[in-house]
């Protein structure tokens, strides 16, 4: 496509609601803009805000698929807005909704930060090691098997975008359900030999219906994770581990 070609007219149907505005009611609003080559949802909604409606709210930070700010429901599926090219949709109608399961800030903007901090505090997503602060950091670091380091990084790649939470059927029914994001973090720290928590401690966090035993195995998390994290395998692994812990308890 060259600069002279006219792109197709895209119709964006966007959820609108600003809880800060007294009397405002949820509704859908349609905006029409011309498609340009390599247009992403990021480019499109910024254009809408600049050219058509200065009140439209959404969140982007890195706009490169790295930071996890822009999870939204795009034509019915949770995904990152920044790296979704408009050209991937055959029809010119694109519907954008905020991620469900999170507190709405306005329009497409949701408060994932509040949710993620609470999750981090709940499962204490840090290395538990009483000796940690006594380590002399001018000496050689503790060694780690190179393969294990790679495995830990694999599970550390979650960007907390919230797509898995929005895609989760169980989460809809159990508001306190930990969700795939939580399970992935548990799997990550459980794998890490630097974290000294043992299986019985993990059991207290995750060995119940709000934890891994509540999962109905619908696997929306696996289907919609933008980072292709191995949710299914890890949920199964934690479940096995927790059953082992439960049996050992008896």
């Amino acid at each position: 496509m060259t600069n002279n070609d006219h792109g197709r007219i895209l119709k964006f149907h966007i959820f609108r609601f600003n809880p800060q505005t007294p009397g405002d009611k949820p509704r859908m609003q349609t905006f029409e803009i011309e498609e340009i080559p390599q247009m992403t949802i990021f480019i499109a909604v910024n254009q809408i805000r600049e050219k058509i409606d200065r009140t439209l709210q959404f969140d982007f930070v890195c706009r490169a698929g790295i930071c996890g700010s822009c999870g939204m429901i795009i034509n019915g599926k949770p995904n990152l807005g920044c790296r979704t090219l408009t050209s991937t949709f055959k029809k010119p109608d694109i519907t954008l909704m905020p991620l469900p399961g999170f507190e709405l800030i306005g329009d497409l903007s949701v408060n994932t930060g509040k949710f993620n901090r609470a999750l981090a505090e709940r499962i204490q997503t840090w290395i538990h090691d009483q000796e940690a602060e006594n380590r002399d950091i001018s000496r050689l670091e503790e060694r780690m098997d190179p393969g294990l380091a790679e495995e830990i990084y694999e599970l550390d790649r979650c960007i907390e975008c919230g797509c898995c939470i929005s895609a989760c059927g169980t989460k809809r029914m159990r508001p306190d359900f930990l969700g795939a994001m939580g399970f992935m973090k548990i799997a990550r720290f459980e794998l890490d030999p630097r974290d000294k928590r043992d299986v019985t401690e993990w059991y207290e966090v995750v060995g119940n219906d709000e934890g891994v035993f509540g999962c109905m195995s619908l696997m929306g998390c696996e289907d919609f994770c933008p980072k292709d994290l191995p949710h299914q395998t890890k949920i199964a692994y934690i479940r096995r581990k927790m059953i082992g812990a439960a049996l050992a308890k008896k």
Partner: protein
Amino acid sequence: MKIVYSDSLVIGGGLAGLRAAIATRQRGLDTIVLSLIPAKRSHSAAAQGGMQASLAAVVKGEGDNEDVHFADTVRGSDWGCDQNVARMFVNTAPKAVRQLTVWGVPWSRVRKGPRQVVINAERVTIVEKDESHGLISGRDFGGTKKWRTCFTADGTGHAMLYAMDNKAIECEIPIHERKEALALIHDGTTCYGAVVRDLITGELIAYVAKATTIATGGYGRLYAITTNAVISDGMGCAIALDTGVAPLGNMEAVQFHPTAIVPAGILTTEGCRGDGGLLKDVDGYRFMPDYEPDKKELASRDVVSRRMTEHIRKGKGVPSPYGAHLWLDITLLGKQHIEKNLREVKEICQYFLGINPVKDWIPVRPTQHYSMGGVRTKPNGESPALRGLFAVGEAACWDMHGFNRLGGNSVAETVVAGMIVGEHIADYCDGASLDIPTSMVRAAVDREEAGITGLIDRTSGNDVYELKNAMQEIMMDKVGIFRNGKDLEKAVEELRSLVVRSRTIAIKNKARSSNPELVEALRTPKMIKLALCVAYGALKRTESRGAHSREDYPERNDRDWLNRTLAYWKSEKDDLPALEYERLDVMKMELPPGSRGYGDARIIPHPDTEKRVREIEEIKKSTPEADRFELQRSLMPYDVPKGYRNKNERVGVGDK
């Protein structure tokens, strides 16, 4: 009026801000972090390639130590850096990496035995030592003598930021998200906190603190195309500038990264070239060896970016609807390597370009990437003009990067500065008492309130997006990789008129609560002032140094320009910054000015250089028994906080 008190207030929740906050919290101080966004979404997460620290565990890092890292950093800066700070930095970087290991970063580790790597377009086998097995690995990066860049695949910043934020949560540090600092509270000599706007409710809150630390990152968004996140708009620098007394340092020092994708401007890591990737032109020809036969694709970033631009100007670029670009070819690294060590790059290519870098070449061109300039600080991280105001990371001009930052030295700086400056902030808090009259706080809040009311009440005026777009285009066209007096003069003139126009912005969205247009309207006039600091500083600096390259003054002029630019905005009525210069003292340098070893660089020497070189030779001769530490101390004594003074152990050599 809502007032929130703390000892240590940190503005910005990226790596630098969080690390400084952890330091003051661990010293028992009441610490609050303000962030525009959830901290884990900060731009630090976008650092892909790695963090430099001279651990020397890989075989290609053998012989590495603080001295080698120091020399690379000073050369990289084109002798514009503060060598004292560079020394503090290289000493502490290994400790920072090791501390992050304890805090959970899954650094890539050395595997003993033979492995295949690509060096200068050829597959070679190198053998890692048995005794290094399981220690932290290192990869090659531009402008470095050794393989020194520690990494976790190409998600280093992500892994570091997550570990850091998790540590902050463990320390129970409150992070107040979706809060924007609009102005600093100060009396002209001391800073007492900031006036902050809640981005959801619109409420103004005074955060009063003993120490206020700016950690808001760079100002890449002054440019229309940048690798930086949309929040990297320099607001921390701007509110320091707005005090009228705190200077910004070296704002004209702006780095362009050689390999951002076209057209989106998203970064592909230097690790692509570090791991063996090549740059190619429209004919598929590898051109870098013609320009830089020694370092080739792995010359310093400023050099590679200029060579690429030169090559495009010769008509060797690949035409596209978005202008000419070049190719980055990583196909020779192989599928396995790319999918393991460069997977973010692979994802970016897949989603934004629809290509697979395992078999396709990546369209790239040099793009704005890093701000060497920022809030000028002393080596302890404090502003030279405002007591209690500190700055760390990219927002600061501390100044370890001078006029060009080495790849892998930025995330390293964030953490190291957080560690070192964090201790100084804590010392300051321990010695300070908080006696600030409520009337001063009130006045500061009222001023911001009046500004917002003025914006909302104005019925006709300038459109904020139009002004912002105009500024970004000026910076792209006239204050880019190559600069000249004529264009810079035009840029300054146009930006001055934008400063005036930005005083009468009118907005359509009149909401006081969450209002993206109001946010733009509050930021854009500040951004234009920063743009002027960059453009005016660049116009006045009639030499070429590091990333500041003047076509009309191609030589590095140590005689007249071995100094740091300080920009002040003394009165709100001004439409230009006031520039002053801070001299760098050659006689105190450990490494006197010399050649960086690239192509056609010409230097007008400083009169002291030869004298200092002779003096250093004398010192070396007179102390033949001295080890490298003793020698270093006799050349340029420096100090770091107590906990960080030990020698760094390395495998095979111990503390030597």
